[in-house]
C-alpha cells in the first residue's frame, strides 16, 4: 500500500518540481454516474480527526479554509449566536457550531463546539446521488472531491448527503464542500484547517494513525470523567475520513445535531436503486406492450363502411 500524506510537518513547497499533483485520475475508486477501472495503486487511507474536547471554537479553521480556497463568504449579521456565517455556504466549507448544553449528570454547563463540514464518507451518499459523470470522485485514500467542470448544479448531492453538507453556488451553480484540501494533500501537505488549528484539535494523517491518536485521547477523556468518550466514525456510511472524538459519544445529537446513526437515506437508495430498474422496466414494458399489440392486433383502421354510416347519419339529420 502506498503511504499517504500526513499532517503537514513542513511548510508548503513552492518549487515547481516539488508540486506535481499526486492525486490523479488513476487514483479514483469511484466516479459519479460512471465507472472507473480499478486504481493502479491503493493509497493509504487518510483521515482528519477532530477532537471536539480540544477545540476552542476559535474559527481558525474557517479562516484558513477561506484563505486557502479563495472563497468569499458573505458578511452577515449577528442573530444572537456565534455561528458566522450562519450555515455552511458555497463559500464556507467548514463551520464551527456552538451549543450550550447543561450536563444533567453534573449540572455543569458544557459549551460543545463542533467543526462541521464534509465527513468524506467511505460510502458517499453525494456521489451515489450525483447524476453527472465525474462530478464527484473518490480517491483511493478516501477523499471525496467535487469536480466543478463536471458538476451540473442539480443539487442531488445535497439529497444524497446524510450530513447536510454540499451547497450550490448562486454564482457558478455548482456544488461546493470541503475538498479535504485535495490540492494540498496531493503535494504532501495536510488540509489548511488542520495546519492552522491552534490546539491541534484537528489533526490529519493516515486513518490508522488517527484512530490510534483518538484512542489515546479517549483514554485521557475517560480519566477526566467523560465515561462515554468515544470515536465518531459512523459505520452506516462505511466509516468516514473525517472523524470526531466526542466526550459524549453516546449522544452525538447534542453536538449541534450530529446524526446518531448516519447512513445514506433509504429514500435515496430507493431513488438511485430500485427506482431506476423499476422505471426502466415500466417504460420498457409499456413500449413492448405497444409493439406486441401492434403485432397481434394490427392497426385499427376506419373502414369505408364506417364512413358511410357517418354520412348516413349526417344526411339523416340535416
Amino acid at each position, binding site marked *: 500500500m502506498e503511504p499517504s500524506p500526513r499532517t503537514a510537518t513542513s511548510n508548503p513547497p513552492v518549487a515547481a518540481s516539488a508540486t506535481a499533483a499526486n492525486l490523479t485520475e488513476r487514483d479514483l475508486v469511484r466516479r459519479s454516474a460512471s465507472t472507473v477501472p480499478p486504481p493502479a495503486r491503493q493509497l493509504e487511507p487518510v483521515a482528519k480527526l477532530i477532537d471536539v474536547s480540544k477545540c476552542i471554537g476559535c474559527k481558525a479553521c474557517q479562516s484558513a479554509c477561506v484563505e486557502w480556497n479563495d472563497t468569499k463568504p458573505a458578511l452577515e449579521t449577528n442573530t444572537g449566536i456565534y455561528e458566522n456565517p450562519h450555515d455552511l455556504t458555497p463559500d464556507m466549507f467548514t463551520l464551527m457550531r456552538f451549543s450550550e448544553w447543561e450536563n444533567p449528570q453534573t449540572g455543569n454547563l458544557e459549551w460543545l463546539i463542533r467543526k462541521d463540514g464534509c465527513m468524506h464518507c467511505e460510502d458517499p451518499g453525494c456521489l451515489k446521488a450525483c447524476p453527472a459523470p465525474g462530478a464527484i470522485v473518490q480517491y483511493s485514500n478516501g477523499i471525496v472531491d467535487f469536480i466543478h467542470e463536471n458538476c451540473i448544479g442539480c443539487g442531488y448531492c445535497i439529497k444524497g448527503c446524510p450530513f447536510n453538507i454540499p451547497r450550490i453556488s448562486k454564482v457558478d451553480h455548482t456544488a461546493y464542500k470541503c475538498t479535504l484540501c485535495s490540492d494540498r494533500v496531493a503535494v504532501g501537505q495536510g488540509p489548511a484547517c488542520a495546519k492552522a488549528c491552534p490546539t491541534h484539535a484537528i489533526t490529519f494523517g493516515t486513518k490508522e494513525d488517527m484512530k490510534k491518536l483518538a484512542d489515546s485521547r479517549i483514554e485521557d477523556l475517560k480519566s477526566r470523567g467523560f465515561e462515554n468518550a468515544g470515536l465518531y466514525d459512523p459505520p452506516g456510511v462505511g466509516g468516514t475520513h473525517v472523524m470526531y472524538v466526542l466526550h459524549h459519544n453516546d449522544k452525538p445529537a447534542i453536538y449541534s445535531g450530529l446524526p446518531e446513526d448516519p447512513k445514506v437515506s433509504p429514500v435515496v437508495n430507493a431513488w438511485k436503486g430500485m427506482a431506476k430498474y423499476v422505471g426502466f422496466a415500466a417504460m420498457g414494458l409499456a413500449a413492448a406492450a405497444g409493439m406486441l399489440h401492434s403485432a397481434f392486433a394490427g392497426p*385499427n383502421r376506419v373502414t369505408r363502411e364506417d364512413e358511410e354510416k357517418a354520412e348516413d347519419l349526417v344526411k339523416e339529420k340535416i
Partner: protein
Amino acid sequence: MATTSIEKEDAIHPGKPVVVDRYNLGARINHWITAVSLILLALSGLAFFHPSLFFLTGLFGGGQSARVLHPWIGVVLFFSFAGLFIRFWRANLPEQSDREWLAHANDAIAGNEEKLPEAGRYNPIQKFNFWCMSLLIIALILTGLAIWDQYFYEWTTIPQKRVAVLVHSLAAVLLICIWIVHVYAVIWARGTLRAMTRGSVTGGWAWRHHRRWLKELAERRRFKKPATPAE
C-alpha cells in the same frame, strides 16, 4: 349526461366523407406545446435519471443548461397542460356507461369496437390517461418545485426533498408510460393524428371510435359548411 361530451368547437361538416371538427387551432397549439415540453422534459429528465442517458443533456447544450432548462420547461408544461385540462376536463368526467365499456375492455384492446357501448368524445381509456396525466403533472410540478434548489431550496427540508425526488422520478416514469400508451393509441387507431394536426377527423373515425359523440353532434344539428373535397 350527454352534454358533457361535446365541446364548443366540435362541429360536423357534411359531405363525402363527413368531416368532424374535433380540435380548434388553440387546442392544437396547446396540445403541441404540451407534447413538445413533455418530450423535452422526458429527455432531460431521463438524462438525470440514469447515467447511461446522461448524454441526452447534449441535446440541451450540456448538463448545466439541461439542469437550468428542465424545470422551466416543466413550468411551461404545467401551464400548457393546465390549458388542456381546462378545455377537456368536462369531456373527461366519468360516466355511467364507462363501466360497461370497461367491462368490455378486451374488445377495446382487440379493436372489436362494435361490441362496445358507444363512446362519447373520449372513451374510458382516454379518460384514464387524461386523469393520470393530470395527477402526475401536479405531482411532478409539486415535487419539482421541492427539488428546484435554485429558487425554492428553503421551502423544504432535505428529507422532504429526498421523498420529492423519488416521487418525481417515479411519477415521471409513470407519465412516460402513459405517454407511450397515448402515442401508441394514436398510431394504432389510424386517422387519429389528423385531429391534432388538421383539427378534424373523418366521420367514419368518429363513427367507429366515438359514435355517441358523433350522434350527439348530429342530434344537435351542429353543422357547418360542407367540407371541401380537397380537405
